[in-house]
């Protein structure tokens, strides 16, 4: 292994980390406001993948595919909230958690029945990778990473520079205080689920373009996203993104030593070590009760 191979791995890790960052961000947003880890997040990603695939098939445009993926994810996410989560939103964490598992199963079943189980690929032109010495970068990866970064930037702008974002963060901080301050909770929840869905849908489209779209794609993304969000500290948006990038690079760099199978396990192991040593996550300040 020369240094260039490691740099290639780091680049690949950053791209994969960016993609995982999207569902991790969605998880952490839902956790911050609705207070449960949403196990259906991955399956919303898969919905976005199929929506993006269909749009790309019809129009051939990547932009349209991304927008359709975002719209598909948002619709699935809001529907899941209205039909399944809202009626039980005040019950215990386990009720919500099991409901989210159920929602995920229903979505995955629907995708399987509607689109079949064969993996489908985006019809993308093959492009030669750009080479700088021994370092190679796929142009497609670069544009997908740019799309991901743009999405992240928009979400963070929304969270930290708009009145809506301020309301969302206020609810996450202290729901009662937010309510007595006149923040309309229901509107904020709808907005939050829409944003989470958009982010997941784009993640689905982007992963679909890099690999393939299949009904279980989302479930396979769920645990890495959990790991990233926990490493960064659940409820902390920036932490989720940093955690995803960290895990992405770490997993890629470990591949030459531990192989492809344990690369995935490494993410969970890092998560458990972080929980053992710093339960609040790497980027959260300590909180009394967790």
């Amino acid at each position: 292994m020369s240094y260039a191979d490691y740099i290639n791995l780091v680049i690949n890790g950053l791209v994969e980390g960016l993609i995982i960052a999207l569902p991790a961000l969605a998880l952490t947003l839902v956790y911050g406001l609705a207070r449960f880890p949403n196990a259906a997040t991955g399956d919303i990603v898969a919905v976005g993948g199929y929506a993006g695939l269909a749009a790309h098939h019809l129009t051939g445009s990547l932009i349209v595919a991304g927008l359709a993926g975002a719209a598909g994810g948002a619709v699935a996410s809001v529907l899941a909230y209205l039909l399944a989560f809202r009626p039980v939103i005040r019950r215990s964490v386990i009720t919500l958690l099991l409901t989210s598992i159920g929602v995920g199963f229903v979505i995955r079943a629907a995708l399987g029945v509607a689109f079949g189980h064969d993996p489908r690929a985006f019809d993308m032109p093959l492009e030669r990778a750009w080479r700088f010495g021994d370092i190679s970068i796929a142009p497609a990866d670069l544009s997908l990473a740019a799309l991901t970064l743009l999405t992240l930037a928009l979400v963070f702008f929304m969270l930290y520079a708009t009145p809506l974002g301020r309301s969302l963060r206020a609810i996450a901080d202290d729901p009662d205080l937010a309510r007595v301050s006149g923040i309309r909770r229901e509107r904020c929840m709808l907005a939050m689920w829409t944003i989470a869905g958009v982010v997941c849908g784009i993640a689905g489209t982007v992963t679909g373009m890099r690999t393939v779209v299949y009904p279980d794609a989302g479930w396979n993304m769920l645990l890495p996203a959990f790991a990233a969000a926990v490493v960064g500290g659940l409820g902390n948006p920036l932490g989720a993104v940093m955690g995803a990038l960290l895990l992405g690079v770490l997993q890629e760099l470990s591949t030459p030593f531990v192989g492809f199978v344990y690369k995935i396990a490494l993410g969970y192991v890092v998560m458990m070590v972080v929980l053992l040593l710093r339960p609040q996550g790497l980027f959260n300040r300590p909180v009394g009760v967790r």
Partner: protein
Amino acid sequence: MLTYLLSILVIMGIYMLLALALDLQYGFTGLINFGLAGFFGVGAYASALLTLKAGWTPLLSFPAAMLAAALLAWPLGRVALRLRDDYLAIVTLGFSEIVRLVLVQEQWLTNGVQGIPGVPRLGAGWGNARFSDMLLLVLLALSIAVAVAVLRRVTHSPYGRTIQAVRDDETAVYVLGKEPARFKTQVLMLGAALSGLAGAYFAHYMTYIVPDQFVPLITFYVWMAIIMGGVARLSGSVAGAVLLVLFLEGVRFTRGIIPGVSDADMGSVQLGVVGLVLILFMRWRPQGLFGGRGAR
């Protein structure tokens, strides 16, 4: 026909053990274990490997399977039990995936995705396969009876009241001078041992095990069973396991009589129904079909 009936009864029994384990952990102690399939798999592989590769008798390999699963639960307890409930769910789910990845990767030991064929049946030297299955069913029934008796004693003892207090109000337990984390670790290990036992029965009944038999879906089947049957009631777990297997067999039967439906589609329908049952029960009947005390 008898073979089919036998297989249904054995699978029911295995799910009963798993449901009892989960009910002890979740129903009585409030521990959200999403890694049941991991402990189940560890038990199955431990007993299979010990009898096949080390030549142990099942008399020893079954307790070893329970021990192996229980020991793996211990570090999990250390990691997760100081955290909020939902973290335990994520950690145990991750654990069961790690177990599956190890089973896939360590081919020198587990033969990877090809799995382990030829796990010896119980009492293989004494009679034919039918005899072995009957013997296994009898032993399984005995194990369930013992497990129910022990759990009933445990849950009605001061210890049982303590773990239920851990579920209902951890701070109160703490104030009474008891350490909730210790009780949680013990319950996690006890439940893991039961799951490991279920795994050992599974391995010696199927005689062929692959990592794909221990996917998280199995965990959620068991969750569905205890939620249908009603949590924190041992009879509810047993009834839930019966309902679950009837449901799974019903789906298989339906596929048999509707022509032109592929296995994959039927798998999707089955998954969807499991999902719907989880959603609807959590919303409308969190106490399960048969009602029950301690329902939340």
